[in-house]
C-alpha cells in the first residue's frame, strides 16, 4: 500500500496491480525492526490512545489503512493470521480460526481448511464455515480496495458480473456440519496463504449486511470488541472476557480508548503530560528532537517499517531511457540528505527490498556508494555527459505531502547539478498516483513509495516487474521491464515455498539496484511514544505487518 505522510493511505487501484504475485513467509535480520519479546507485564487497566485521523473504515471487508488494520486485528481473526510477535516470528503465517495451515493440492489450486471447534463471535453466535464465503462476498460486493486479491478464487469474477449479493461463489465450498472450507483457485497463487491472512478475509456473521458497517461494526472473533464508536471522533476496544482460541493472544488491557486528535503537536504534548498513553503517529517534527533526547528507550522508540522509498526513473522516456542517465541519478543522490528531509525517520539503504523482508540480502558494497557516504557527483556529471543527455529538460513529480514535495524539489536540484534542466511538478496528493500511473502523463521521474500489504517480497517486486506495466493505474511507474528481473520473478512468484525462492528475490533486488532500474534510498521509520503509565520494556511489540501490537500493550 502506498502510504501518505499524514497517515496511511492505500489506494484501491493499487491493489489490482498486485494480483499476479506469489506469497509466503518472511524473515527479519535487522536489529531494529522488532520490539521486545513482551512476555511480561500485568493485565488489566485502561489506556487512552491518539490517532491523527479516524480509520478509513471499521469494517474488515473495507478497511485498507494501517490505522484500520491495527485496530481490526484485535477484533477480527481470519482463517490464517500472524503470530503476535516482532520480527520474523510475527511475519510467519499461522492458523487463525483454522485448525491448521491449509492442505494445498499438488497443482496449487485447491486449498482445504477446517474451522476450529467451538468458535463463537463476541456476540455469542457460533462461527460457521459459510461465514467465510459471506465475508469474501462482502469484500467483492462492496468493491473493497482488497477485492482484487480474491478474484483468483474460482467463480469470483462470475459472482461480480452477476451482481447478486446473495449468489454463491462457486470456488468456495463451505460445509457447516464439519467446518470444512474448500477454496478453488483459477490458477496457482503462492501468495494465497498471505491473502487469507489479510484482514479482508476476517470472518463476520453471515447476516452482516452488504454495506459499510463502520457505524456499528459486526461482531468478530478476537480478543477485543468495538464499543462506543463515534465516527471521526473515536471508539473503544473492550476486552472480550471469554475469548479463548488456542495460540491466539488474549489481550492484556481491559479497555483501549482510541481518540482522534488532529493536531499532532497537541498529541505530543498530551503524551508528554501523560494525558494520552500512546500516540500512533510520530511526534510533530519540531518536537521530535526533544522527544528523542529525553525519552528514547524509556518512552520512545523508532522502528524501521517494511517499506521502500525510491525515485522512479521512466525507462520509456528520455533521458532515463539511457542506463547511464539512471546510473547518474543513483550516483548523485545523497541519502544522508534525504534522511534529513524525513527528520531522521528514514533508514538510508541501498536495497529496494526492506530489511525486514524475506529475501532481503544487504547489497554491500552498494554500487552507488555507501548510503551514509557523500555522493559521487563528479561521476554522475561524467555519466550525464557520456550519455548524451546533458541539457535535457526533466520534470520531477511529487505530491503535496510535505516530505514528497521536498523530495521532488531535492531531486530536481540534484538533476540541475549534474547537467539537466529540471523542475519539480507538485500534484495534489489524492490524484498523484493515478496521474503518474497513467501512460499519457509520461512522467520522467518522481517520488514513489510502498508499504507492504503482506510480508512477502513479491509484494514489493511487482513494482519493478515488467508484467505489472499497464496503461492506467500503473504501479510500475518507471516502466521497468528488465528481462533478468522478469525471468526471476516469473519463477519465484509461483512458488509457495518462500524459503526456496528467497535467494531468487534477493537476486532480483540486487539486479534492480545495480542496473539502476530505480533510485532506491531508504525505508521509513515509525515511532512509538508512550506516557509514563505504559510498560515500555515488557509490553512493546512492533509487529512486521500491523505495527504496534495492541494485544501486548500493558500498563505498569
Amino acid at each position, binding site marked *: 500500500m502506498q502510504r501518505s505522510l499524514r497517515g496511511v493511505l492505500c489506494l484501491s487501484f493499487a491493489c489490482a496491480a498486485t494480483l499476479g504475485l506469489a506469497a509466503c513467509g518472511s524473515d527479519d535480520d535487522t536489529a531494529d525492526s522488532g520490539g521486545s519479546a513482551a512476555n511480561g507485564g500485568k493485565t488489566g487497566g485502561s489506556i487512552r490512545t491518539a490517532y491523527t485521523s479516524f480509520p478509513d473504515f471499521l469494517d474488515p471487508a473495507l478497511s485498507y489503512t494501517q490505522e484500520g488494520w491495527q485496530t481490526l486485528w484485535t477484533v477480527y481473526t481470519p482463517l490464517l493470521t500472524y503470530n503476535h510477535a516482532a520480527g520474523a516470528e510475527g511475519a510467519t503465517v499461522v492458523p487463525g480460526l483454522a485448525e491448521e495451515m491449509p492442505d494445498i493440492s499438488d497443482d496449487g489450486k485447491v486449498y482445504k481448511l477446517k474451522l476450529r471447534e467451538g468458535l463463537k463471535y463476541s456476540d455469542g453466535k457460533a462461527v460457521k464455515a459459510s461465514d467465510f464465503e459471506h465475508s469474501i462476498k462482502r469484500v467483492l460486493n462492496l468493491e473493497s480496495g482488497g477485492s482484487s486479491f480474491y478474484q483468483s478464487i474460482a467463480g469470483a469474477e462470475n459472482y461480480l458480473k452477476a451482481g447478486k449479493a446473495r449468489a454463491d461463489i462457486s470456488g468456495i465450498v463451505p460445509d457447516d456440519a464439519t467446518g470444512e472450507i474448500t477454496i478453488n483457485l483459477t490458477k496457482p497463487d503462492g501468495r494465497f496463504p498471505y491473502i487469507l491472512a489479510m484482514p479482508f478475509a476476517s470472518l463476520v456473521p453471515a447476516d452482516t449486511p452488504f454495506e459499510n458497517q463502520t457505524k456499528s461494526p459486526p461482531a468478530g472473533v478476537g480478543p477485543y470488541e468495538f464499543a462506543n464508536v463515534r465516527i471521526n471522533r473515536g471508539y473503544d476496544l473492550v476486552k472480550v472476557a471469554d475469548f479463548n482460541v488456542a495460540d491466539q493472544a488474549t489481550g492484556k488491557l481491559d479497555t483501549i480508548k482510541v481518540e482522534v486528535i488532529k493536531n499532532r503537536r497537541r498529541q505530543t504534548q498530551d503524551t508528554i503530560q501523560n494525558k494520552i498513553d500512546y500516540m500512533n503517529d510520530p511526534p510533530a*517534527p*519540531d518536537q*521530535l*528532537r526533544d522527544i528523542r533526547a529525553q525519552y528514547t528507550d524509556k518512552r520512545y522508540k523508532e522502528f524501521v517499517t517494511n517499506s521502500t522509498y525510491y525515485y522512479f526513473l521512466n525507462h520509456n522516456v528520455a533521458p532515463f531511457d539511457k542506463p547511464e542517465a539512471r546510473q547518474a541519478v543513483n550516483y548523485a543522490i545523497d541519502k544522508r540528505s534525504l534522511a534529513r528531509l524525513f527528520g531522521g525517520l528514514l533508514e538510508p539503504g541501498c536495497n529496494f527490498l526492506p530489511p525486514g523482508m524475506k529475501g532481503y540480502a544487504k547489497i554491500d558494497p552498494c554500487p552507488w556508494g555507501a548510503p551514509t557516504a557523500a555522493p559521487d557527483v563528479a561521476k554522475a556529471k561524467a555519466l550525464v555527459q557520456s550519455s548524451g543527455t546533458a541539457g535535457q529538460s526533466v520534470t520531477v513529480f511529487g505530491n503535496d505531502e510535505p516530505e514528497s514535495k521536498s523530495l521532488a*524539489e531535492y531531486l530536481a536540484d540534484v538533476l540541475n547539478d549534474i547537467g539537466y534542466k529540471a*523542475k519539480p511538478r507538485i500534484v495534489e496528493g489524492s490524484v498523484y498516483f493515478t496521474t503518474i500511473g497513467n501512460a499519457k502523463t509520461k512522467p520522467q521521474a518522481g517520488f514513489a513509495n510502498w508499504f507492504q500489504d503482506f510480508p512477502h517480497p513479491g509484494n514489493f517486486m511487482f513494482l519493478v516487474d515488467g508484467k505489472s506495466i499497464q496503461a492506467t493505474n500503473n504501479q510500475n511507474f518507471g516502466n521497468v521491464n528488465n528481462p533478468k528481473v522478469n525471468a526471476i520473478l516469473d519463477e519465484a512468484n509461483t512458488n509457495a515455498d518462500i524459503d526456496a525462492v528467497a535467494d531468487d528475490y534477493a537476486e532480483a533486488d540486487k539486479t534492480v539496484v545495480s542496473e539502476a532500474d530505480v533510485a532506491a534510498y531508504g525505508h521509513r521509520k515509525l515511532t512509538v511514544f508512550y506516557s509514563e503509565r505504559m510498560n515500555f520494556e515488557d509490553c512493546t511489540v512492533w509487529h512486521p505487518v500491523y505495527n504496534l501490537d495492541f494485544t501486548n500493550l500493558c500498563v505498569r
Partner: protein
Amino acid sequence: MSIADSQVSSELTPVAEGGPLATAPVAGLSPWALAVRRLRRNRAALAFGALFIVLVALALAAPLWADVAGSTPSKNHLSDTVVVDGRTEQVVTFDGVPIAPTWQRKFFLGADTNGRDVAVRLLYGARNSLFIGITAALITALLGVLLGTLAGYFRGWTDAIISRSLDVLWAFPVLLLGVALGVALATDGLKLGPLVISGGSKWIPTIIIGVVGVVYLARPIRGQVLSLREKEFIEAARAQGAGPIRIMFSELLPNLASTILVFFPLLVANSILLEAALSFLGAGVQAPESSWGTMLENGITLLSTSPHLTIVPGLMLVLTVLSLNIFGDGVRDALDPRAKVRLEH
C-alpha cells in the same frame, strides 16, 4: 461639472473683494498638482511609499544577494556545513531542523527544511509576490474599469448581464474560489484558445487573482459611470456627435482616473495577500519558485524550533501590505479628502 472640476473649486482660496490682492494674479493649480501637494504633506504616506520602493529595490537586487550568499533560491544544502562564529554547524541537522539566522553572508536569515538559503528565497520570493500582486492588480483594474464602464454607460441588458455575472463572482468566497481554480489549473494549466499557460507558471495565480478581484473595482466604477453619464458634459459630447467609445475614453475615463489611482495600491496589497494565501494552501506559486506564501507554508511545521521560517516571510508580507495600504490611504486623501474608499470582502 466633472468631479475634477468640483475638486478644483473646493481648493480655491476666496479672495476678498476690493482687497489688496484683488488685482494680483492667482496661480491656478491643476487638481493633480493639488493632490501631489497634499500627498507631500502626508509624511506617513510618503514614508511608507518609500518603504515600498525599498522593498521593490530589494526584490530587484535578489540575484546580487544570491551571488554574495553563494546560492540560488532552489539550491539544496541539506548535508552542507557552515562556519558560524568559528564553529562548524550543519545547515540542516539529522533531525531535520534547519540552521537559524547566522547574520553573515551565507544563511543570513537561516535555512529552510531543504537547506535553502532563506534570505535568497525571501528576495526571489519578493520578486514573485510583487510581480503577481502588481500584475494581478493591473488585470483587475483593466477588467474592472472596462466592465464597470460598459455596464454603467449602456445600462439595460449589458448592465444586467455584467452585473449578474459579477454577482455570481461575488457569491463565492474569494479565497475558496481562488483555491479551487488554483488547484484545478495547477495540474493541467490553462488553455483558452491561443492562450496556453503551463500548470506551474506563475501566470496561473496572477490571472486567477486578477479575475477574482474584478468585482471589487467594477462595482464602484459602474456606480460612478451611472452618475457621470447623466452630467451635462456627457450630454454635450453626445450633442457634438461623439459615439459611445469616444465618450467612454475621452470623457468618462479621465473622470475615473482618481478612483482608479486610489484603488490601485489597495488592489496590489490585496493581490499580494491573496497570492500569499493561495501559495500557503498550495494553489498559488508552484515549486521550485518561492513566494512569501510558500515560505510560510514550509515553515509552519517547524514553528517552535525554527520560527525564523515563518517570521521572516510574514514580516515582509506585513511590511509590504502595510506600506501599500498607508500609501494608498495617502493617495486617497490627496485626491479626494472626503472619499472613504475601502476594499470590502
